[in-house]
């Protein structure tokens, strides 16, 4: 017990002060039946050395960690500048609570304010919150918000929305009694936005979508009428791509993992949530705002707290308390380290490597089920079938999704590949050889 001081002499003195006779007496208010039913979990304590060695063995049992990842679909194998972990390792940041006491939380609050600014810059929106649990709950909450405001009880959703997003959206909508209408995609892999259902609270679209294809958002908003245009985005791509805000999005959400977070088997992640100023009182989660102290100096504090469950309780617009603050800090530091120049470089590297590979594959006779524009991820049909190609890639140490994963989108016999800045020329050459045969 390295963390808990158990000093029998001190304990005796403290019990005296409390005025009870024994440690057990401290629990006399728990019904005896409950206490007597108790069973231990059957675990001996272990030393730090043993726990660490145990986890080292578990870590070694993860073959994926030493493989070369070609996986995407919301989480990507990006390089994180090492300085990010150093900042996050400052215990003042990671051992602090939510900044309820702003005077001794200016570190967290200033970073939240910076984060919000950065999210607005990236997405082209006016306001952003300080984070959501992940991209999926961010999207679900965006839809709840849209429906709260518009009240149609129905939302239209692109069928090219990634499965992780769709699953969570379905759950939240089911509970809230919101009907979900599907909007199909075409041969380009782009959602058919020409005719959208009417009387919906929101139209939900993801770009790049689950097939890696960039959606043509231009003009969509005009066709929507009252409905919110809710766009789920890939923030790293926005170093190169025009932000959804420029196309009239009402809410932009996204998975922020690409901004400085490890893949971590999918958690913790970082939900981004940005919208128009007019919806400030409606947005879920926390927001930091600028204010002044008693001496007139600038400081930061949680703003718009009146929305919060503390005050309004059952009328709260959101139940979110703990969110992804430290992940948001990671994204903030990531963007600060890269700067606009660096982010553009990373984004372009992803773009050019993925396109390089796709073009090589095309030359070698692979085909592509969809011909829409893409960023760093695409669906390819290997020459001799996806199953065989998948087996070859796996045997060669690549980590790839099984081809069945795409059946959810009606695609068969194809693989989805994501290519990040971490993939080397040599790795891409090997992928090309394994998929398209040597040239």
């Amino acid at each position, binding site marked *: 017990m390295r963390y*808990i001081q158990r000093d029998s002499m001190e304990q005796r003195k403290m019990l005296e002060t409390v005025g009870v006779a024994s440690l057990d007496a401290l629990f*006399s208010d*728990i*019904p005896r*039946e*409950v206490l007597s039913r*108790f069973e*231990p*979990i059957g675990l001996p304590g272990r*030393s730090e050395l043993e726990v660490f060695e145990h986890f080292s063995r*578990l870590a070694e049992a*993860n*073959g994926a*960690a030493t493989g070369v*990842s070609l*996986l995407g679909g919301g989480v990507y194998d990006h390089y994180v500048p090492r300085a990010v972990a150093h900042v996050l*390792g*400052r*215990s*003042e*940041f990671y051992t*602090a609570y939510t900044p309820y006491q702003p*005077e001794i939380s200016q*570190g967290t609050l200033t970073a939240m*304010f910076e984060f919000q*600014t950065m999210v*607005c810059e990236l997405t082209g929106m006016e306001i952003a919150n300080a984070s959501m*649990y992940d991209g*999926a709950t961010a999207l679900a909450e965006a839809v709840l918000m849209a429906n709260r405001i518009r009240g149609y009880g129905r939302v239209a959703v692109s069928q090219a929305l990634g499965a992780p997003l769709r699953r*969570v959206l379905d*759950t939240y909508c*089911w*509970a*809230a009694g919101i009907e979900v209408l599907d909007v199909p995609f075409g041969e380009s892999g782009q959602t058919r936005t020409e005719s959208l259902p009417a009387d919906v609270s929101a139209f939900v679209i993801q770009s790049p979508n689950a097939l890696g294809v960039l959606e043509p958002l231009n003009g969509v908003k005009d066709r929507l009428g009252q409905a919110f245009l809710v766009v789920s985005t890939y923030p790293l791509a926005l170093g190169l*791509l*025009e932000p959804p805000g420029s196309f009239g999005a009402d809410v932009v959400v996204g998975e922020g993992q690409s901004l400085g977070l490890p*893949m971590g*088997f999918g958690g913790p992640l970082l939900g981004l949530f940005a919208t128009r100023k007019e919806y*400030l009182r409606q947005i879920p989660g926390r*927001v930091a*705002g600028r204010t002044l*102290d008693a001496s007139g*100096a600038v400081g930061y*504090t*949680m*703003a718009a707290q009146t929305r919060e469950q503390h*005050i309004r309780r059952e009328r*709260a617009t959101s139940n979110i*308390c703990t*969110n992804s603050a*430290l*992940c948001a*800090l990671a994204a*903030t530091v990531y963007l*600060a*380290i890269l700067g606009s120049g660096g982010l553009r*470089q990373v984004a372009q*590297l992803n773009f050019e490597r993925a396109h390089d590979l796709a073009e090589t594959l095309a030359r070698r006779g692979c085909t592509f089920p969809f011909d829409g524009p893409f960023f760093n991820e695409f669906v390819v049909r290997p020459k001799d079938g996806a199953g065989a190609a998948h087996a070859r890639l796996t045997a060669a140490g690549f*980590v790839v999704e099984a081809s069945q994963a795409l059946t959810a989108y009606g695609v068969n016999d194809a693989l989805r590949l994501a290519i990040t*800045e971490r993939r080397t020329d040599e790795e891409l050459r090997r992928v090309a050889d394994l998929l398209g045969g040597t040239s």
Partner: protein
Amino acid sequence: MSTLFDLASSTREPAGGVVPRPRWTDEEVAARLDGRLLRRRALRLPNLPEGTVVRHYTRLSKLNYGVDDGIYPLGSCTMKYNPKLNEDIARLPGLTQVHPLADASLVQGTLEFLAELTRLLARIAGMADVTLQPVAGAHGELTGMFLFKKYFESRGETKRVRILLPDSAHGTNPASAAVAGFEVTEIPSNASGTVDLAALRAELDASVAGIMLTVPNTLGIFEESILDITAAVHEAGALAYFDGANLNAYIGRARPGDMGADVFHFNLHKTLSTPHGGGGPGAGPVAVSAQLSEHLPVPRIVRREGKYALDWEAPASIGSVHSFYGNVLVAARAYAYLLHLGDEGLRAVSENAVLNANYLQARLKNSFPLPYDRLCKHEFVLSGGELPNHLSTLDVAKRLIDYGIHPPTVYFPLIVREAMMIEPTETEDRAALDRFVEVMETIAREARDEPDRLREAPIKAPVRRLDQTLAARSPVLTHPFPEEA
């Protein structure tokens, strides 16, 4: 407080150098991408050398107060020490560099500890099954409410639309119930701070889906009639949800399953020592009784023929509540903590948590009114309602800052006027508790004799008292960039 954006000068050239230089010209990019898809306006992100950025965030860090800086007696938040071992485990490349869509055969290590943690949490709860998917306490609550909904839906009991809640409940409870589409009915507390059983019975009809209880409650008081409460709820055909944020009060010696809980959420970032990160990420695993386990979120981690796998086949499931499998790296920390503690350690957790709280309560009630003066569990609530010189709880809180101590939770629970909710946690030693008492006594004296010291507090923090109203009234939520030329 200057921000990163204040550091930037417009002439600065991109620093670059994190990744290799791209090879394509703008034209080569444009040849592959419709011009309307390409970013037109450059991002307004400063381009600074690493040292400038690191200095900025190092400075910001020092404006914060963390558990490593001292006692952090935020009631209900369980701000215990976060072991460094767990931090390092969660940073092992073998755990971090793993994609959630990797084939199960390539992630056996992670699946193993997730499965093991699931099993251990179920044993701790004394319940049938656990999902690790919810990523925060409130997310666990929401998941729990979804489970209630599904349960009654599957039984065709669609009229059960109400959730009962004690007036001492944490704010996330009613909010979660509301987000899940339930109506909330408040149940008053009785004079001893616990649920008024008669009032509860009066509400229990066929429109009630269930009750949400915090055990011990937010006053730090154990619901002594807990078995009567849950029995009454069950008799009425309803379910009992337990908010487990306060589990450190009895972990290692009692189990919610033995008290009648149908759904129970853990706060790993409270009870099992994972750090709060300035507001997350956390983890809110949910335990359920046998009758609810078919409704748990997908995927489930299963073991088949000696291998771990993800099972998506669960027709009665509520679906998913997270993109993947919850906060896996938070779960890793919690599992490490459990492995270290073992049964003996878990017992030490509740022992010291409760001893520390009662010790503080005994010593502090001489200086501040204690509305519910009785044995407490892991925390207790003082009142600042009798402060002299028109001072408030907020003034006491801010004055604590001047003494280098983090204030307790204030103005919650709502049923105590000017509440100060104090939770020392089990990792504080007596020296730290005594120092806290001494400072609180000093502040009580100052309140009487030198009230301005409280009113003007804090004076030793990085900023003086901040104007919260201003922030709410005229919100400035992003850096105001100067208009560009």
